């Protein structure tokens, strides 16, 4: 959303369907695409790394003779980076784009606060949490209506919850659990391991968080398709979004 004054129709109280408004500001747009590339590469290379030892444990240690809580499938070539198993190259991709993800998120956090995007657009108001409001939002989703006609630019409750969950919980947790896997960082910041309950627990949480991010990505893409993919894509490229019927 632009930080400038609202466009004419909005100030009037209702927005006529078909009006093109400014939806996403440049900070959000740039971060969205940088992050989209980083997350896809991290998921693909992460599955490649998982293939090297597809067992997950809880606690500080965990290897072949210890009991695993999960035995993961061998992820096929079309899901992994590189397609052919190569742990070294998967790690090269993963550890480079981990920096893109981490510093990208840091920059976006600062940008989101400075442009007041977070405070204005992601803050959940008390009235949104009333059962009747939640129920109404739920029914609107079932009817594939994702915007509020009176304030089409605003995010609905489920959008706010999922975006805030990804931004402030899932992505930071993926980064923190990733840091916990580094023996160098274990020496630098031993508290990270203490918080997460050991390196193998951190590895398990890293995988679970990545799975949740992958699920978010799928739901996100499906909703973009349902909401009108060209209009939604344009709004994330140029910032301009046409208010749906």
């Amino acid at each position, binding site marked *: 959303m632009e930080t400038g004054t609202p466009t004419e129709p909005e100030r009037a109280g209702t927005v006529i369907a078909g009006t093109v408004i400014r939806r996403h500001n440049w900070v959000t747009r740039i971060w969205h695409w940088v992050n989209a*590339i980083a997350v*896809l*590469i991290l998921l*693909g290379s992460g599955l490649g*790394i*998982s293939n*090297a*030892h597809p*067992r997950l444990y809880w606690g*500080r*240690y*965990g*290897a*072949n*003779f*210890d009991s695993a809580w999960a035995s993961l499938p061998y992820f096929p070539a*079309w*899901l*992994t*980076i*590189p*397609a052919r198993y*190569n*742990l*070294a*190259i998967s*790690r*090269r*991709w993963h*550890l*480079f784009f981990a*920096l893109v993800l981490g510093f990208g998120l840091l920059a976006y956090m600062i940008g989101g606060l400075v442009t007041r995007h977070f405070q204005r657009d992601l803050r959940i108001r008390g009235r949104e949490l009333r059962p009747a409001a939640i129920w109404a939002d739920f029914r609107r989703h079932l009817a594939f209506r994702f915007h509020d006609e009176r304030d089409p630019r605003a995010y609905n409750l489920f959008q706010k919850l999922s975006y805030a969950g990804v931004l402030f919980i899932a992505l930071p947790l993926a980064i923190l659990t990733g840091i916990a*896997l*580094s*023996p*160098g*960082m*274990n*020496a*630098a*910041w*031993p508290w990270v*391991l203490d918080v997460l309950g050991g*390196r*193998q627990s951190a*590895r398990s949480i890293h995988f679970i968080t990545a799975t949740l991010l992958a699920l978010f990505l799928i739901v996100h*893409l499906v909703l*973009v*398709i349902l909401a009108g*993919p060209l209009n939604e894509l344009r709004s994330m490229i140029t910032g301009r979004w046409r208010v749906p019927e």
Partner: protein
Amino acid sequence: MIARRTILTGGAGLLLAGCDKVIQQPTARKILFAGEDMQKGLQRALMDRGALAPEYRRDQMSPIFRTNGTRNPGTPEYAALAANRFEDWRLKVGGLVAKPLSLSLRQIGEFPARRQITRHDCVEGWSAIGEWMGPMLGNILKAADISTRARYVVFTCADLYGGQPYYESIDLIDAFHPQTILAWGMNGRMLDIGHGAPLRLRVERQLGYKHAKYLMRIDAVDSLANIGLGKGGYWEDHVDYDWYAGI
């Protein structure tokens, strides 16, 4: 609708497939591989030079510490050394040192030993916690009077990979770190063959493949360029593993 969905998810698929094409470009490869130096720079900036890897209690140790990599060098030379319980084995310390050494296991045992219960993290993802005992590498390098020109320490092993001895290297920050030891003891016993007898490196702030087993030589050098294929280790030379394995 189907077509649009194909475009979106196909786009993601193309990106994954595209990665394999991208990395074949020398420039892209160089940028991607520069991630190692960025990670190393960041870690070294955030980490106190002497910051210790976590140490554990006895009751936190792995019940079974698995072996991996070479489980027995299997060469006639090594078999002869092992048959004689490493009585004839010597660790050669050379390169940029004023006093080259040739140390028996007994002589290494006369250096003050550090006992540490640490976690071994394999690059594959598993971890095992074990107890290690042996002298600090720094004390041995000091005994050999290491030159101020030295920048790296290279470890040459008894096990062969493709006909060449396995080797690894670390820089002097890690070489003189208090937890960097040459372990002759493990879990309260002499180091066994599966875990690298008679002597192996422990470099606790890095991944497992840096912890060279079956040590034969230690050389102080000013550059890694003329050793092996020049990348500082067997895996680094042959399969693109990072030389800095702090992550």
